[in-house]
């Protein structure tokens, strides 16, 4: 498309009902789906479209790639900050931005391409009662031509990864990623359900819908591929998901365990497997049947020494045959196909030099998984990852020392870091890894709590002052009572009978008042006793 042929427009947007102020779905919110895999689908969807409809918030880099491919584009966003951001970014492009609830918007003409890579979770206003996936899907279908091109991402809440994320520790109050865990019962329960809604075909997304590194048609997504992409590099606490993932894949299949699904329709031919390696480069993939890592871990779990030995031997033979094919792989990128060990993809990265070094590095990573991935009693028994690696090497008659293991690991992790890759299992967080942001959050929280303490102290001071005033007034009353008693005693001692009668009548009400109001004030009880004695004396005098 030639941009100069399209009319220019100013940085403005139109507004429909359901527009939301005060927050953004694009800035400081849950991460938007992004990355080269989704971008490829976005470009395929938008290419040569006459009217591209972008449903909901999208990553700006991804939008940059897609928007230029269509003659005109309409982006529907529910928040004003996002509408402003996008309309300003594409002010000189044929892009219309609409702010409000997607269901309030009616297009002038139907779209012939629809992009909804953030799913349908952030297109309806929260001012109205929550809607569900089917209602939005139905509306989206009505906005497009029957044969429109389409790419819609659907999250899979049942994936092991999604489930582990929902049980993450309590989020801090300042955590912008926190969101109320809404569960949409209408969310499609399978890729088949989602595909049927749009009469499209589907891909499984791995590891999740936020930043998938692999999109594979269900028939092309093997256990090995799923395991190789089942370790989100940006979520250290979830790196040990492989055993659970392996079980789920064996039981339910790749489709049910995927992080999410991508439903497409009418796109130009796209391979059954689209993915990037851990450096972010596109590469070719081998859909090996099983995962070598998962099988070796199962041997370990069931104490199958011969099975473990066999798997390690197979790996040694494969590495020895062609070290260049293995030098860039990590242990969860190894497949087992028809009894042979195969790499799941080609790699140009170099994590080790010699075959021995590469093998030792891979065994060390296997040991890391066995130690860290939830096995309560790692086996073969050892005193940690170093010694376990030594024992794994010994199963194939390779003699190494823990020092050798550490040296290889150090070299390997250094190479990983230089390529932007991460170790298979995150090391325990050392003090130097402390997050300054966390410290700031805690300090802010502490400050807020201090504010509360100050508030309470002020309240207590007010009450203390009030109590003090009441006590002072009460003491004043007691003193007055004592003075009155003294006065009565003086009058009694003067033996003035007529006057005493009057005094007795008035004074007889005093103890009752004292008991009712000041019974607990220090000095009142002795004063009352004294008063009662005085009264008895008065009555005696009056009776004479």
């Amino acid at each position, binding site marked *: 498309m030639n941009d100069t042929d399209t009319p220019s427009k100013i940085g403005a947007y139109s*507004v*429909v*009902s*359901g*527009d*939301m*102020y*005060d*927050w953004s779905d694009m800035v400081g919110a849950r991460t938007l789906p992004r990355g080269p895999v989704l971008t490829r689908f976005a470009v395929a969807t938008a290419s040569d479209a006459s009217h591209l409809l972008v449903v909901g918030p999208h990553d700006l880099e991804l939008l940059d790639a897609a928007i230029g491919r269509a003659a005109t584009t309409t982006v529907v966003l529910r928040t004003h900050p996002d509408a402003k951001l996008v309309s300003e970014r594409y002010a000189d492009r044929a892009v219309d931005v609409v702010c*409000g609830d997607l269901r*309030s918007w009616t297009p002038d003409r139907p779209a012939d391409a629809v992009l909804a890579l953030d799913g349908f979770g952030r297109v309806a*206003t*929260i*001012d*109205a*009662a*929550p809607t569900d996936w089917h209602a939005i899907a139905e509306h989206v279908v009505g906005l497009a031509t029957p044969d429109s091109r389409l790419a819609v991402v659907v999250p899979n809440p049942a994936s092991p990864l999604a489930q582990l994320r929902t049980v993450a520790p309590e989020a801090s*109050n*300042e*955590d*912008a990623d*926190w*969101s*109320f865990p809404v569960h949409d019962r209408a969310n499609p329960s399978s890729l088949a359900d989602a595909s049927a809604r749009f009469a499209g075909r589907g891909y499984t997304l791995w590891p999740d819908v936020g930043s998938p590194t692999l999109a594979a048609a269900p028939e092309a997504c093997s256990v090995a591929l799923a395991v190789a992409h089942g370790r989100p590099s940006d979520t250290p606490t979830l790196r040990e998901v492989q055993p659970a993932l392996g079980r789920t894949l064996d039981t339910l299949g790749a489709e049910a365990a995927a992080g999410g699904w991508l439903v497409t329709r009418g796109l130009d031919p796209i391979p059954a497997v689209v993915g990037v390696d851990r450096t972010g480069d596109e590469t070719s993939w081998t859909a090996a049947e099983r995962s070598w890592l998962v099988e070796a871990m199962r041997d370990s779990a069931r104490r199958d020494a011969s099975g473990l030995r066999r798997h390690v031997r197979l790996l040694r033979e494969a590495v020895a045959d062609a070290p260049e094919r293995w030098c860039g792989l990590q242990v969860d990128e190894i497949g087992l196909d028809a009894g042979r060990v195969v790499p799941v993809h080609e790699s140009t990265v170099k994590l080790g030099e010699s075959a021995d070094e590469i093998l030792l590095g891979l065994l060390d990573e296997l040991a890391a998984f066995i130690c860290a991935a939830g096995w309560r009693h790692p086996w073969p028994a050892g005193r940690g990852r170093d010694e376990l690696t030594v024992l794994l090497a010994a199963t194939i008659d390779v003699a190494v020392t823990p020092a050798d293991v550490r040296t290889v690991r150090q070299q390997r992790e250094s190479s990983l870091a230089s390529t932007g890759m991460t170790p298979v299992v995150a090391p325990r967080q050392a003090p130097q890894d402390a997050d300054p942001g966390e410290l700031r959050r805690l300090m802010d*929280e502490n400050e*807020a*709590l201090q*504010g*509360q303490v100050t508030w309470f102290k002020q*309240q207590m001071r007010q009450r203390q002052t009030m109590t003090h005033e009441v006590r002072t007034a009460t003491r004043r009353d007691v003193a007055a009572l004592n003075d009155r008693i003294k006065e009565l005693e003086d009058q009694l001692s003067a033996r003035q009978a007529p006057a005493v009668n009057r005094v007795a009548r008035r004074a007889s009400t005093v103890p009752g008042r004292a008991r009712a109001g000041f019974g607990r004030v220090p000095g009142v009880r002795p004063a009352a006793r004294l008063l009662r004695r005085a009264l008895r004396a008065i009555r005696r005098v009056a009776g004479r």
Partner: protein
Amino acid sequence: MDTSNHWYGHAHILSEYCGLPFEQPRPIWGVLQHGWNLLHGFGPGHEPPYGFPKFVWSHANLRRGQAVGWRDYAVIGAPWNYLLELKKDVEPVPPADEREGTIFYPFHTWDHGEINGDHDRLIAEILDTEEGPVTVCLYWIEYDMPEIRRRYEDAGFRVICHGKRGTLRQGTDIRFLHKQYAEQIRHRRVASNRLTTAIFYGASVGSEVAVYGDPMTFADVRDASVRDGNDQARRLFPEFHGVETDAEEVRATTVRELGLDAMASPAELRALFGWEITA
């Protein structure tokens, strides 16, 4: 206690509803939403401290709050709802044929900002629209401004004020809502030039409601935190706007926005507010 809990006598009404003294409500452990709004239940710049429960009127407020990452919400409905409960036997809403005229609430200034608008134009619109006697209820600030008050009086309207909401527990008219209730149930219609809390209150006592006339604007829309939400309100609640409105639609929205379907029992409120009787 957050001092805004006292505004309009909210804490007092809730205290009475809970079987506790009206005059001296106990401190509420948390912050009450004090007026209907299009935000998270609280005004611009009003951020309840971390750990303080937020007692809001509707689920929409809760959703908006949760969307910006706020926690500790509890939807209990508006204190007005509890006043209706207290009044239903002692001062019930009279039948429609015993109510007459219109009570009109002009959009008003507030303690920290002013508005721009043409009162004369609004008066003319009210005169053109309303049949029967009209009561104009001014906010206390306008009520204390003779130049504004006199314009409405000169137009032949009865001009009243429900009282002050107070600041830092000083000057609060704790029977504000009682006065508002008494006025609203004697009028057939409740109207305003903006969708405001009073309109929802009117709808809740069976009044016809209407929003029309010069909506006026904030004079100092400094930033997004003090924005003029009138257009948004018109888009979101078209059923309230106009001289005539559909009673059924208005009623359904009012139930949601005032949380008439989300009221708590006295025991639940006592537990939520930290008002459990321990003596």
